[in-house]
């Protein structure tokens, strides 16, 4: 019996081994397009827009336009189209007695045509060719960065993850993790100093060594990408920007159960 155990108070136990601490970053590209409303929403909005169009206060034409101006004619023409679309021909601005009823598109042509601006398409080229590395894909959805790393037996998809070194705070470790794994060519912002989730990895076999760490705790931090792109280091074999469902197809079941509630459904 050693001297230290002789003098140790009988109620004090040996400190339990601490778990391994890891941090991971959920790097998010937020939606860059407003989502397409569902068919129900579209019907609802169209109905409300018709009610609003039918009940709005009379438009003060003389306050906004000089009488007979080009701007007024343009407005009347567009308003006529909109009213015809909402209520059918012959109502509102499409009524033969409405202001500016005589103006036609041909009349406006003599002032010169202004080119209508066509908005950029909502489907990007990367959506068509299935390029999962592009940050422009799936503009309406939240995308998350997943990286592929080689372990001894297989290639595993997961969020960028690293072990916490001594005397390092969790959020510092998360920032270091992101720079080390994904390179310096990105502008990112880690949202909060607090982790947004925890995933625990228990060893598959019962431990024989009492001093070995009983489990690994992975703390997740949410981050946003503002600009740039991932330049993965040597430890990374592949990366992808994926939606929640696409992530579920690549990661293993256990990992998915641990992370699925940290991700946005849409």
């Amino acid at each position, binding site marked *: 019996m050693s001297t230290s155990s002789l003098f140790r108070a009988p109620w004090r136990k040996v400190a339990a081994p601490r778990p391994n601490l890891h941090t991971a970053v959920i790097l998010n590209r937020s939606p860059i397009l407003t989502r397409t409303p569902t068919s129900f929403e579209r019907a609802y*909005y169209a109905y409300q827009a018709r009610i609003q169009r039918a009940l709005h206060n009379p438009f003060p034409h003389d306050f906004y336009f000089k009488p007979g101006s080009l701007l007024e004619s343009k407005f009347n023409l567009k308003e006529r189209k909109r009213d015809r679309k909402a209520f059918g021909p012959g109502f509102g601005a499409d009524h033969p007695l409405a202001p500016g009823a005589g103006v036609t598109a041909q009349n406006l042509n003599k002032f010169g045509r202004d080119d209508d601006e066509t908005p950029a398409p909502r489907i990007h080229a990367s959506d068509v060719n299935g390029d999962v590395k592009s940050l422009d894909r799936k503009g309406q959805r939240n995308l998350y960065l997943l990286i592929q790393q080689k372990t001894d037996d297989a290639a595993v998809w997961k969020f960028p993850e690293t072990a916490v070194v001594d005397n390092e705070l969790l959020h510092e470790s998360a920032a270091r993790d992101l720079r080390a794994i994904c390179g310096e060519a990105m502008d990112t912002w880690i949202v909060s100093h607090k982790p947004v989730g925890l995933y625990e990895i228990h060893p598959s076999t019962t431990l024989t060594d009492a001093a070995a760490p009983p489990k690994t705790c992975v703390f997740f931090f949410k981050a946003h990408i503002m600009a740039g792109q991932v330049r993965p280091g040597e430890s990374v074999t592949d990366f992808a920007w994926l939606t929640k469902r696409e992530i579920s197809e690549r990661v293993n079941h256990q990992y998915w159960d641990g992370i699925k509630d940290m991700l946005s459904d849409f």
Partner: protein
Amino acid sequence: MSAAAVRAAAAPTRGLRLRPVRKIRKLVHDNRGLPIPHVDIVVRDTHLSRLGEHYYNTLADDLLYLTYKHESGPRPPPRSIRLMYDPEDPYAKLRHNPPVGGSQVGRKLAPPTTSENVICLERIQLHTMSKDALASRQNLLGPIMALRALSGETEQGGGRRGSTGVQIVRGVKSVGGWVRPGLPLGAKVDLRGAKMYEFLGTLTEFVLPRLREFPGLLLPPASTNLQTPAGVSGVVSFGLPPEAFGFFPQIEVNLDAYPKTYGMHIHFITSARGVGAQERARQLISGFQIPFVRR
């Protein structure tokens, strides 16, 4: 036929008894012969709000993570408030009787952070004071028309009872030779819902980028005491100079219809309450791309 069989034969008819036919009320018609519906018609949202979606998809999550304060265990009960004088004491009955230790309003704790009470923008108030309205109240017509054009709000607009439209602000107290109580001084309007987000988008995309030498909204110095009623109420305010008036697209189309340009105060009224409410309100507002700078 036994009595039970008779009862069994009679039972289905009891279940199938027909309800009396409901009378359809006839619609009342107005003097032009058009039907007036039975229900109050209220105009709801007419389109998906871009910034509203941005709030629900991105900002709400981030703000929950940013503003979360971990609390272990339930909070201690609030301090009991003791008044300076015993209210039962007839000698002190009519004295000013403040609580001992001063007002606790500025030290009110924020409610515990949950996913249900994430800070959100409740309304935006635009407010403009027109000094020349003192000379003639006709001079208020310009600001009223400007606020109507900016907000699109009218009194009970769209059948909404709560919609107040543009309101006239009147003097509250007497200031020697200048203001008397009840004198019309300016106008204000409250924006909520989709129109609020639309205004916010206009402000950040058309107005603020075109302002000359605009670094951002000035933050108060770090030494400012925020334990005041204003500091815990979750309101962020700033002023726009008259030069910014013409940058709003709603005004730009017919700027010459207004007798002059008007500046305005813009108040972002959020749901944040308690200690640190103003910081949390700024975090929310900056999520809508309104810049802040330290002086």
